[in-house]
């Protein structure tokens, strides 16, 4: 066999190269379209145009008015122009991201490239547009505090009537978070090896598993724990177990991401050494990879438990058990003193968890 797998890969690469060019073009298209849309947004916002009600157009109405099709067409045109004219215009952002910057441009400071100016402008446009879309009102924020004094007064004058029930549910909250984390560990541990790029390059099967696990976890993580809670409440009924399941699903996704990043950062030396002894793949994982990732895994897991305690409050709002379950009606009824008690209980717990997890992590890393 004269030609090894490596060379075969290189011969297959024209196809891959074309895929990367397409990727670069799509990123440029997206950036330039966003650029055109934000420019249009700002032009309309400052043109003093009036909406259907006769008042100045609101940001939401402007978002409705924008010419998305035209912007996309313009973005495509500009992306094509930048792609073909990269000899004069310099590498486009998409190409720089996907294909890298060619040697001859490598050392130029950003102020000397169109790409640099474009990105700087994009950042500014995004801040301006964001300011308008989220309707930032600095003056109101700084002058209208008095309207909230009732709530704040309640929070600092906790009432003792819910203290006992609060403490009981706090225990439930902590265990709820703990069980969710405990169930998440084995699943996340196994999946994280499939979600680490450096361990999944070799075969088509592994590469597919990587893509599948990554995509699945990104989707799972993107769905709010609150939504998971609603799903599981329908599934297993109102109560702490639904909360455990909701936090479990979310924790698996989050831990896989954190774990796999740690796996990607390992020192490859021991992996080489164990591979060189003739060990099998599982043995290489056990000896070359696992010992290196155990301390960060532990640290992330404790951190996750900490997060789960905080999240379980919100899960309780919709019936997923824990202290949030009695917090929600008191928020709705404006019983701020009782809300204050519960909030302080949660805060004290989170504070303790934080100190504990920091101490433990300090010890094991």
């Amino acid at each position, binding site marked *: *066999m004269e030609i090894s797998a490596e*060379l075969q890969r290189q011969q297959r690469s024209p196809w891959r190269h074309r895929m990367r060019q397409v990727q670069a073009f799509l990123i440029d298209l997206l950036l330039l379209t966003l650029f055109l849309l934000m420019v249009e947004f700002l032009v309309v916002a400052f043109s003093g145009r009036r909406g259907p009600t006769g008042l100045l157009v609101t940001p939401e109405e402007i978002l409705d008015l924008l010419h998305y099709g035209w912007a996309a067409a313009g973005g495509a045109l500009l992306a094509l122009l930048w792609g073909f004219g990269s000899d004069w215009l310099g590498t486009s952002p998409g190409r720089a991201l996907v294909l890298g910057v060619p040697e001859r441009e490598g050392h130029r400071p950003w102020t000397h490239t169109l790409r640099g100016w474009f990105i700087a402008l994009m950042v500014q446009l995004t801040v301006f547009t964001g300011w308008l879309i989220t309707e930032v009102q600095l003056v109101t924020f700084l002058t209208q505090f008095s309207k909230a004094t009732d709530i704040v007064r309640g929070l600092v004058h906790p009432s003792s009537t819910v203290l006992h029930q609060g403490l009981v549910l706090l225990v439930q909250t902590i265990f709820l978070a703990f069980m969710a984390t405990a169930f998440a560990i084995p699943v996340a541990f196994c999946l994280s090896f499939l979600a680490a790029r450096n361990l999944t390059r070799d075969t088509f099967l592994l590469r597919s598993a990587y893509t599948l696990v990554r995509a699945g976890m990104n989707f799972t993580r993107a769905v709010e724990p609150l939504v998971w809670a609603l799903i599981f409440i329908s599934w297993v009924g109102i109560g702490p177990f639904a909360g455990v399941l909701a936090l479990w699903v979310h924790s698996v996704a989050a831990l896989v991401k954190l774990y796999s990043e740690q796996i990607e950062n390992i020192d490859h030396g*021991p992996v*080489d*050494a164990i591979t060189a002894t*003739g*060990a099998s793949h599982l043995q290489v994982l*056990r000896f070359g990879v696992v*010992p*290196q990732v155990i301390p960060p895994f532990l640290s992330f897991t404790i951190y996750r438990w900490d997060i789960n305690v905080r999240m379980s409050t919100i899960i309780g709002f919709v019936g997923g058990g824990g202290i949030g379950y009695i917090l929600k009606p008191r928020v709705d009824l404006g019983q701020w003193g009782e809300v204050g008690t519960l909030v302080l209980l949660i805060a004290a717990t989170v504070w303790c968890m934080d100190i504990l997890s920091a101490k433990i992590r300090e010890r094991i890393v």
Partner: protein
Amino acid sequence: MSQNGAPVDIGASRPAEVVRVEGLTKVFPNGVRALSGVDLEVRQGEFLVIIGLSGSGKSTLLRCLNRLIDPSAGRIWIFGDEITAVEGAGLRAMRAEVAMIFQQFNLVKRHSVINNVLSGALGHTPLWSSLLLRFSGEEKAQAQAYLDRVGLGDRGDSRADALSGGQQQRVAIARALMQKPRLVLADEPVASLDPALRHSVMRHIEALNREEGMTVLCTLHDIDLIERYATRVVALRDGELVYEGEPKSFDAVTFHQIYGEDAVMAGSAVD
């Protein structure tokens, strides 16, 4: 012995062929050409030292031999069997017979010293018990004996990263011994050690060669180490084999041919 078309050894008086490399070429995906058309033959019992500047392809050559790196072209025979493209169990069986010693020791830092030595046996141990870090009493006794041999018999329970560099490299040598290999690849084994400690590590590698009859391929930099330990020297420059000869005939002229005019011979009496 060689079913795969390796040239059959006719001269019966010569020691058996351990490594044979023909036209070995490695081009990395980023376009770097680390090896171009290297031919090499190593016979049983040799202590072959490979020299050359950093980036000349020494490390790539060694890593191709146990297939930590897949070659781009060329063929490799180890103990007469072609291993250029073997996969799976065949590849692991070959690796089990070829130990490697690394510049950075590459111990499992958080494991105990004795566990690191035992990991050398992974090519032979049953999968499930090894995943639970359970080794047989026989293997443990063997590992302890090898640790004694490299002078670290009392450090078995220490964590590997609690040891000094020279000690860690001796643990790595014990791990190599545990593998009971017929061929040892040592990639700059003393380059990250204090000069004063280099001989203490090199002597253990020499013992693998002299006492255990293992064939050794070793990359080195220092001229005094080459003269002291090598039975034969080859040199790589820009991925090509540019020199081959006895350590005795290796002098200042050949040194400068290999390393360039600006190089200074380290630790050398010849100048």
